[in-house]
Structures are given as structure tokens and as C-alpha cells.
């Protein structure tokens, strides 16, 4: 700070107010204030402001912070069984991507098929699917029924693949027809997928039925063998008993 105090020097006044100036400077300012009403008034007002500030008290909150441990214990390591990477469950994004790829592949297969087929006959496929779905593969379905249905589906598919694409090719003139075609392709693809699915379900039901029969036959055979063995044993025991009784009577 300068040795010569200038009237109105705010920095010097603040230093004086907080009693943070050198003793000689303190005396200099004190002497100035005695003769300067403006600086005296300023110091009085700032001092009164400081006194008022003392009224501002923070709320009396209970604090009581404590550090309870030197080191937080590390969380226990969770041991998980090691799963081979090919058996580990896929993350959701990978599953979604796989589903998308499968769907796209299905669409493209349908589209390829439709380039060589007639316009879709959308009414027929759902009817078949409905019919199949309403007939559950229970014991009431005979193998003949299944074979008949399979034959029907196969013939229908063969008809479709052999039909002419002429009408579709001719219809590719305008956007509307293109849109119609795309819609048709999608519907056709969906119908194909439904049909394939139905066919597979029918095949599966047939396989299950065949397997059931084989199992039943096997069980019967096993039962027969066991019954035979038990019968033989019983016969032998009866013979031994007969022999013992005859010996006693003698």
C-alpha cells in the first residue's frame, strides 16, 4: 500500500475496516477519518453492515459425520460357473439382430420364389393353416389323416412352384403395381412360411406318433419278457414244492 492515503481509497478503507493494514497506515487513515466526514460516514455504514451480517446464522442441523472404516471392504467376488462361449446366452442386441437376419432371409426367399410363381392366392394358405391348427396332434389324429394332409400340402406347394410368372412380370409397369407386387411378395412369403411351418408341425406330429407306437411296442415286449420270466420261475417253484410234498407223503 502507498504511504500516502488518498481520500476515498476503497482498498485502504476496507483494510482499515478489517484492521488489516500496517500500524503506520492504520494511524494515517484514522487521522484522515477524524477530519473527513465522507470517509467517516463510509466506515460507519460499512461497520453497521458488518454488524447486521452477524444476524445471519446457519440452521442448527445435527451433523455427526464419521468415517466408519479405514478401507471399504471390497465386494465379494461372485463365482459363476464357466460357460462355454457357444452355450452362453446371447445379449439382447445379438438376439434382435439374429431375429432380423432370419426375418430378412425369409422375406428374400419368399421374394425369390415369387419371381417364378403366379400372383399369390392368399386365401388358401390361411385356410389350410387354420384347419391344421384346429386339429391338434393328439391320439384322435390317425396316421392316415396326417399322411393325407401332408400329401395335400406337398401337392399345393408343387402347384405353386410350377405356375407361370407371366402375370407378375407384366404388371411391373407402374409404381402401384410395383407396390402391389411387393405386398403380394410379402404375403406370399408369409403364406409360404406358414405353410412350411404347418408342414413341419405335421411331420413332427407324425414322428411323435410313430415314436409313441415304437415305444409302446417296446414296453409291451419288455412286459411280455418279464411276465414270461416270472411264469417260468413260478413253474419251477411249483415243481420243487410238488416234489417236496410227494417226498413227504412217501
Amino acid at each position: 500500500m502507498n504511504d500516502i492515503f488518498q481520500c476515498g481509497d476503497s482498498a485502504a478503507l476496507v483494510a482499515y475496516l478489517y484492521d488489516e493494514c500496517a500500524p503506520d497506515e492504520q494511524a494515517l487513515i484514522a487521522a484522515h477519518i477524524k477530519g473527513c466526514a465522507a470517509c467517516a460516514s463510509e466506515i460507519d455504514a460499512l461497520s453497521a453492515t458488518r454488524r447486521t451480517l452477524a444476524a445471519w446464522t446457519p440452521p442448527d442441523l445435527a451433523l455427526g459425520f464419521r468415517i466408519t472404516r479405514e478401507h471399504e471392504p471390497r465386494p465379494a467376488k461372485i463365482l459363476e460357473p464357466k460357460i462355454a462361449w457357444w452355450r452362453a446366452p446371447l445379449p439382447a442386441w445379438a438376439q434382435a439382430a439374429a431375429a432380423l437376419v432370419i426375418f430378412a432371409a425369409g422375406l428374400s426367399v419368399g421374394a425369390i420364389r415369387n419371381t417364378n410363381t403366379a400372383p399369390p392366392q392368399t386365401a388358401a394358405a390361411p385356410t389350410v393353416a387354420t384347419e391344421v391348427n384346429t386339429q391338434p396332434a393328439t391320439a384322435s389324429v390317425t396316421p392316415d389323416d396326417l399322411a393325407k394332409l401332408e400329401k395335400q400340402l406337398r401337392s399345393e406347394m408343387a402347384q405353386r412352384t410350377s405356375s407361370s410368372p407371366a402375370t407378375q412380370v407384366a404388371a411391373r409397369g407402374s409404381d402401384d403395381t410395383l407396390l402391389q407386387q411387393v405386398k403380394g411378395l410379402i404375403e406370399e412369403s408369409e403364406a409360404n412360411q406358414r405353410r412350411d411351418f404347418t408342414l413341419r408341425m405335421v411331420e413332427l406330429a407324425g414322428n411323435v406318433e410313430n415314436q409313441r407306437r415304437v415305444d409302446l411296442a417296446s414296453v409291451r415286449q419288455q412286459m411280455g419278457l418279464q411276465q414270461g420270466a416270472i411264469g417260468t420261475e413260478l413253474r419251477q417253484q411249483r415243481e420243487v414244492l410238488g416234489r417236496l410234498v410227494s417226498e413227504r407223503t412217501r
Partner: protein
Amino acid sequence: MTTTDEELVARAQGGDVESFNQLIVRWERPIYALAYRVIGKEEDARDVCQDAFLRAYRALPGFKGQAKFSSWLYRIALNLCRDWIRRQRRAPVSQLPEDADAIEMASETGPVESIEDLVARRELSAIVEEAMSELSEEQRTAIILKEYHGMTFQEIADMQGCPLSTVKTRLYQGLSLLRRRLEQQGQLTPELVKRV
């Protein structure tokens, strides 16, 4: 004989948690008061205070004693307050609730102070809070550190990272603004001013 901060810090650095807890007991009230006055929210100030001690504890191995422990702690708390203010982006000083109940307030203090005095003190406190909230963050912090924590100009300059002259300017301008505001509110009467 009272153990000094430096001794407690040394013990805490050696792994004695209780020594650090003694430092907390010693400094939690001033740090909380600082946080409350700077940010103006009771619970947030409490959180800032807690966070300041937690950070100080974690950073204790790196504390080499270049500054006083209290100055270091104040700096941590002030930095957290600044972060809080930046996050909030709004007037940092809270108001006394309008529906503050005088009876409830009376029960918070001892029986010496009458309810009238208590209400008057609370009102004045609210006026000061409001006036302080109108200052800039730098002016408010400088006044808080000087008035309520008794720091020197140099310590405030170190804390705020500015020259000494800037601290004096902030204090002078801040006090002048407060003075005007308090005069407008009728809190600085000529009688009060003349008491000096």
C-alpha cells in the same frame, strides 16, 4: 492439551481413522456453515459438507501439509460449492419459508430468547440472506470467508485464486451493495450506523 490439526492429520495419514474423525468433529460445523451460506440449502449444504470430508479423507495420503489443513478443507468445500452452483444455475441462497412457525422456531432454541426476539432475529437473518443472494458468487464468497470464517485477505486470495487487491475490491463492493440493500429494507437506520 489440545491436539493440533497437524498432529491429527499425521496420525490419520498413518491409518488412525479416529484421528480423522476428531478433525471432522472440529471442522464440520464451520464447513457446514460455509456451505450453507454459499449455496443456501440446508440439505444440500449437508451433502456438500459430508462430501468434502469424504474427499479430504480419500485425498489425505496426498496432503503434504503445504497449507493448513483447514485451508485445504475449505478449498475442497468451496470447490464442491462451486460445482453445486454450476449444476443448479439458479439463485443459490434460499429464503426463509413464509410459513415458518414462530412456536416451532421457539422450540428450536433455549428458553433465554423470547419468541419476539427470536422472530425478529429470524427475520433479520432472512433479510441478510436475501441481500447476500443478490451479490455475485465471488463477492458473496469473499464476504463469507472474511466475516464468518475470519480469514485474512491473503488466505481469501489463495482460496479464490485471485490477487489481494481483487479480494479487497470484492469485499468493498459487496459490502456497499449489502449496505444499500439493508438501507432499503430499513435495517440500517442512522442510529445503528452511528453506534460505531
